[in-house]
């Protein structure tokens, strides 16, 4: 399989995530689509790391970056879901149509 195949798979996954952010109204599903986009970026990083061989091994700097991205994404999920719970307590809804003001 060539590098282009992996890049196309990664780009399509990113596009699906982006379209989900545009289409869906539920905050939690939008958040899941954000995770999809982050993972698509990870796939292209790992593909570039594997194809840029240094001394016969993959370039591990790329995989360390993926590790950091996964860590930051986990922290982001924790904070984001806490914000969603706080929003739900204030407004009793998770639809972005009803979440249109900063104060309550």
């Amino acid at each position, binding site marked *: 399989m*060539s590098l282009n195949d992996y*890049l*196309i798979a990664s780009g399509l996954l990113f596009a699906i995530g982006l379209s989900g952010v545009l289409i869906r109204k539920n905050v939690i599903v939008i958040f899941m689509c954000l995770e999809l986009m982050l993972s698509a970026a990870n796939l292209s990083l790992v593909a570039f790391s*594997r194809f840029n061989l240094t001394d016969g091994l993959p370039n591990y700097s790329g995989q360390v970056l993926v590790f950091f991205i996964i860590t930051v994404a*986990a*922290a982001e999920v924790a904070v984001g879901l806490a914000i969603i719970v706080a929003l739900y307590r204030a407004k009793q809804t998770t639809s972005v149509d009803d979440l249109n003001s900063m104060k309550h």
Partner: protein
Amino acid sequence: MPPFLFYIFAGIMLAFGILVVVLKNPVASALSLVVSFLGLAALFISLNAYFIGIIQILVYAGAVMVLFLFIIMLLDLKAAPKEKGGLLAVLGGIAVIGVFAVQLIGITSNFEAGKVTLDERPLNLAAAAAARPALPEGIEDPIANDLLEGKLPDVKLIGESMFTHFGFHLQVVAVLLLVATVGVVILSKRELK
């Protein structure tokens, strides 16, 4: 990895990614996302990134998605009431995918460096073992030993890279996790006073 496995796992990843967007019930979306991440982890493993593949399953498909399901069930979201005025948004979403796909295929068809295949870039463990820096007399290099035995010690290699070149970044991420923990506790208190 034989090509048909790539197509199977990429197909699983993309098909369940589409289901995340299409399905109305948030719980069904979350479970589709788990399957999509499993397909992605298989693609990581096909790229010899075994550690990243396992982390993807443990952290994403495991911890993060359990957190999602926990919140969906805590808020007791019903299978969403009708999302009104969706037609324009749906057309926009499909247009985004179409434009992305056309651009990707246009760019990658002209990207000569991307046409190398995995078979043309085999891992060379013996050369990697030979390129390891020499250690003082009497100290064994576990990474070089693994490489000479024909294993790919990718956890050790990632760890070596992380603790030699990216030590500062690792500490910054640790502080970020601490800040996130404190932030979540403060956000979750009932009254923000």
